[in-house]
């Protein structure tokens, strides 16, 4: 069983922040779903935010096949490290 994660959109300042945030997103979503995160896609959309806001949609799959249930959509905020601005 896995939780497949889709990230709708995301803002970032540079590649370093992007990489760090990407790892944190997977970690947070894993904790949220209390299971293993499967796939995650974060399209790059450069900007200069104080906070990054993004959406995830999570569903539970079995052997790669989505199981019946709900698509859980969640909005997130991610603080950009001031040192990186």
């Amino acid at each position, binding site marked *: 069983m896995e939780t497949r994660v*889709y990230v*709708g*959109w995301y*803002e970032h300042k*540079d590649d*370093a*922040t992007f*990489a*760090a*945030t990407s*790892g*944190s*997103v997977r*970690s*947070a979503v894993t904790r*949220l779903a209390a299971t293993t995160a499967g796939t995650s896609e974060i*399209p790059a*959309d450069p*900007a200069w*935010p104080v906070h990054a*806001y*993004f*959406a*995830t*949609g999570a*569903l539970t799959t079995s052997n790669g096949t*989505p199981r*019946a*249930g*709900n*698509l*859980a*959509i*969640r*909005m*997130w*905020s*991610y*603080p950009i*490290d001031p*040192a*990186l601005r």
Partner: protein
Amino acid sequence: MTARAQSPTSLYGASVPRSGPAAIATTPGTLLQPRSTYVVAATQASDDMRVTAWQDTTHELQLLGHFDFPGYPLAAVAAAGLDSSHVATAEVGAPGNLWLQSWRVGSHGPAITGGAMEGPNTRGDARLRRLV
């Protein structure tokens, strides 16, 4: 440059019933309003395809409405934001047809604005990405 990883904060959410493939997208922000306004989900519910839209009020995801394609079982689906009020979806139907559709999102929910069929005999996953 070293970045310190921090945990994202969960703000609020919504859910939609689904029985098959699903995808979400948000409308891109603008220079004046960088935060996305709309969130869209394309899902399979029973044998129907459903496109649902919410408005991100910055306090909640407010349900705006949905659009159903009855009797359209999905093998795969993808979605991408096009501009501040439009998204696109790509659906691979169970017979193997790939459909591309564009949607306008407003206060009444998603409204289809155009579509085209590419296929048939499409296999595999569906992916969409806006070219910046």
